[in-house]
C-alpha cells in the first residue's frame, strides 16, 4: 500500500516506538518566542541540563511587542521583562535571535519561510498553535505547549501519538475576489471547530496547486481552527521557486539533491487516508464570520443562521448575544468600526499588495480606523520599496511595525468593548482582540473593501464581478 505525504515525512523522523503506541519523533527545527519559552528555559536550568541541539532553535520576539516606536524601550513593564528575558536566555544558551531591531524580526511563522529556514520534509514545532503554517511546504509542523518546548530543548524530540490522516481535496477555480482565506474559512465552516481534531490534514486538488506559497500558508495556518494538529501541501515547482535563493536555502549541488528528495514528497496514488473530503472552489464566495469561533462563518451574501439550522442552538444564541447580531440577519451593509490587517494568517507582502492595489487613490471611510501590521521587517521593507506604504498612508491606513498585534491583543493594540473589527487574523473568540471586542474574520481584499466602504460589502462587486442580488 502506498504512503501519504504525512507518513513519508513522519516515518523519516521516528527514533523509536514506546509502550502504548507512542513514538519518539525527532524535530528538525524549533522556533521559540518570548511568551511560551521562559518557563521552558527555567526548566532546563533547574534540571541542570543544557540545550541538546541549540543550532536547531531559532528565536524571535513577536507576540508581546509594541507595533509603534520599536526603537524605544518597551513601556509596559511586564512586556519589557518578557522580551528582555528572551534576549537573556538566547545569549546564555547561544541561540540565534531575531529580536526587536533586527532586520529579520517578525512573526515567527512569517520569518521561518521568508528566511528559507522552513523546507519540505522537515519536522517543525513552536509553542504556538499556528505553527501549522509551515505545512504549506510539505513539512510536518505543529504547535506545542511549554512542557514540550522544554522537551525539545532537552532532547530535540517529542513523545507523540501518531495522528490520523485526512485529505481535503479542492478542485475547480476560485472566483475573482475570492482568496485562499475565503477557502479555508469555508472549509472550517463545513467541518466545524473540532472536525479535524486527532487528524493531520493534507490539502490537495487543482485549486490548491494553483495557489502561491503565501496563499498556501494562509490555508495551512488555519488548520488548527478546525482542531487539526496541522495541515500540509505536497511541495511542487511553486514551492521550489519560492525557496530558491533564500538565506537558508540549499545551494549548488545541495540544491539539486534537495529538490530531488523534495520531489518525492507527495501522497502515493494508492495511499489511504482515514478521512477524505471534497469541495468545489467555484462555489465559494467571499467569507465572513458572524460568531465567536472560526467555524461560525458564512458566505458574505448569506444570512446569519437561525436556531433551527444549527446543531447547537445554545452556542449560536450565546455567540450572537456577544456579537450583537440577530438570527437570520443579513450582514451586508452593516457598519464597521475597525479594520485590522495583519497576523501570521495574512500579513505577508502579497496580502499588503492586494490591499494597496485596491485602496490606491481611495480613502478609508470616516467611521473606520484601519491598521495594517506587516508580518516582518522584511515585509515592511519590501512594502516601502514598492511604495505601498505611501499608498496605504494616503488612504488613511496606519502602517505599524511587525508583530502579532491585535490578532491576540496582548500588547496595546486592542479593539474597544462592543466595537466591530473586521480582521484578517485567525480567531474570533470572545475577547480575543480585547475584552468585549467583536471580531469578524475575512480575507485581505474584503478587509480593504470594508475599510473604504465603512460597512460590510461583497468584494466581488469591486473587482468587476457581477454578483446576482
Amino acid at each position: 500500500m502506498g504512503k501519504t505525504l504525512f507518513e513519508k515525512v513522519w516515518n523519516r523522523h521516528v527514533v523509536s516506538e514506546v509502550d502504548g503506541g507512542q513514538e519518539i519523533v525527532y524535530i528538525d527545527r524549533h522556533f521559540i518566542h518570548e511568551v511560551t519559552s521562559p518557563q521552558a528555559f527555567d526548566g532546563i536550568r533547574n534540571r541542570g541540563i543544557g540545550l541538546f541541539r541549540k543550532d536547531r532553535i531559532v528565536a524571535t520576539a513577536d507576540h508581546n511587542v509594541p507595533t509603534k516606536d520599536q526603537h524605544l524601550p518597551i513601556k509596559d513593564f511586564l512586556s519589557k521583562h518578557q522580551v528582555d528575558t528572551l534576549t537573556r536566555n538566547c545569549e546564555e544558551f547561544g541561540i540565534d535571535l531575531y529580536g526587536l531591531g533586527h532586520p529579520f524580526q517578525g512573526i515567527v511563522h512569517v520569518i521561518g519561510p521568508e528566511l528559507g529556514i522552513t523546507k519540505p520534509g522537515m519536522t517543525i514545532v513552536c509553542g504556538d498553535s499556528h505553527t501549522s503554517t509551515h505545512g504549506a511546504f510539505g513539512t510536518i509542523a505543529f504547535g506545542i505547549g511549554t512542557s514540550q518546548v522544554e522537551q525539545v530543548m532537552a532532547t530535540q524530540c517529542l513523545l507523540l501519538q501518531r495522528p490520523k490522516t485526512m485529505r481535503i481535496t479542492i478542485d475547480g477555480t476560485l472566483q475573482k475576489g475570492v482568496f485562499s482565506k475565503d477557502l479555508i474559512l469555508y472549509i472550517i465552516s463545513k467541518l466545524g471547530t473540532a472536525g479535524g481534531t486527532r487528524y493531520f490534514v493534507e490539502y490537495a486538488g487543482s485549486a490548491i496547486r494553483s495557489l502561491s506559497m503565501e496563499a498556501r500558508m494562509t490555508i495551512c495556518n488555519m488548520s488548527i481552527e478546525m482542531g487539526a494538529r496541522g495541515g500540509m501541501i505536497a511541495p511542487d515547482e511553486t514551492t521550489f521557486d519560492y525557496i530558491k535563493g533564500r538565506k537558508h536555502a540549499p545551494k549548488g549541488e545541495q540544491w539539486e539533491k534537495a529538490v530531488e528528495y523534495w520531489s518525492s514528497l507527495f501522497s502515493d496514488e494508492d495511499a489511504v487516508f482515514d478521512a477524505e473530503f471534497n469541495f468545489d472552489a467555484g462555489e465559494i464566495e467571499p467569507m465572513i464570520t458572524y460568531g465567536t469561533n472560526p467555524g461560525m462563518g458564512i458566505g458574505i451574501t448569506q444570512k446569519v443562521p437561525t436556531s433551527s439550522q444549527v446543531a447547537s442552538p445554545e452556542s449560536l444564541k450565546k455567540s450572537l448575544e456577544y456579537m450583537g447580531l440577530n438570527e437570520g440577519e443579513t450582514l451586508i451593509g452593516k457598519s464597521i468600526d475597525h479594520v485590522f490587517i495583519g497576523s501570521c494568517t495574512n500579513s505577508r507582502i502579497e496580502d499588503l499588495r492586494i490591499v494597496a492595489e485596491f485602496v490606491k487613490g481611495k480613502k478609508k471611510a470616516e467611521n473606520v480606523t484601519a491598521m495594517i501590521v506587516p508580518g516582518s521587517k522584511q515585509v515592511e521593507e519590501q512594502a516601502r520599496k514598492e511604495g505601498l506604504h505611501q499608498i496605504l498612508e494616503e488612504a488613511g491606513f496606519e502602517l505599524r511595525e511587525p508583530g502579532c498585534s491585535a490578532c491576540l491583543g496582548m500588547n496595546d493594540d486592542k479593539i474597544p468593548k462592543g466595537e466591530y473589527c473586521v480582521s484578517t487574523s485567525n480567531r474570533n473568540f470572545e475577547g480575543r482582540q480585547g475584552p468585549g471586542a467583536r471580531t469578524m474574520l475575512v480575507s485581505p481584499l474584503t478587509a480593504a473593501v470594508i475599510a473604504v466602504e465603512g460597512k460590510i460589502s461583497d468584494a466581488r462587486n469591486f473587482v468587476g464581478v457581477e454578483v446576482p442580488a
Partner: protein
Amino acid sequence: MEKFGILESTVVPIKVKDIDTDQIIPARFLKATSREGFGENLFRDWRFDEQGNPKPDFVLNSARYSGSILVADENFGCGSSREHAAWALVDYGFRAVVSSYFADIFKGNALNNGLLPVQVSPEFLKEIFKHTEENPQQYLLINLPDQTISISETEFSEQFEINSYKKMCMLNGYDDIDFLLSKKADIEAFEKQHIEF
C-alpha cells in the same frame, strides 16, 4: 508533577461547548515568565467585570458549586496552544477536567501538568450535568488505576481511555522529559543516519 490516583470531589459545571483557551486565560495575562499565579485570572472575562468585580452569575463565583473537578461541554480547550490554560486550572485547584471531547494540544498540556482530562460519552456528560444541577453536593469519583468515572452513589459509571504510558506517568508523577532524557543514546544514533536538506 503531582501523582494522580483516585479523586472524589464535588464539581464545577460549565455547560458551554467549544471553550477555547483564550476564555480559560486571556492573552493579556500571559506576560508572566513563571508558571505560578495564573489561577487568579482563570476565566477572567467570564468571571469578572471590567472593574474587577465578580460576575454573580458565573459558576466560579457561585456559592452553590466548588470542587476540584471541572465539567465542561464538548471540545474543551480548543484554540491557542498556551500551556498557561492548564497552569491556570491547576493553580486554581482543579485536578481533573471532564468533557465529551478535548482539543489535542490542551489534552497534552493537561497531562504534562498532572491535570487529568477525562473524556466521557455525551450521554454520561448529560447525566453529570443533570445530577449536579439537581444536587450541587453530588460527588464524582475518578479512579485512574481502573480507568473509571462514576457519579457517586448512583448506578452511573463509565470506563475512560488513556494512553498506557501517559497513565503510568500520571500515576507516578513522571514527566516526558525524564523519559526522553533516558533515550539520549537512541536519539544520537538516529541523528547519525538522519539526512536533512
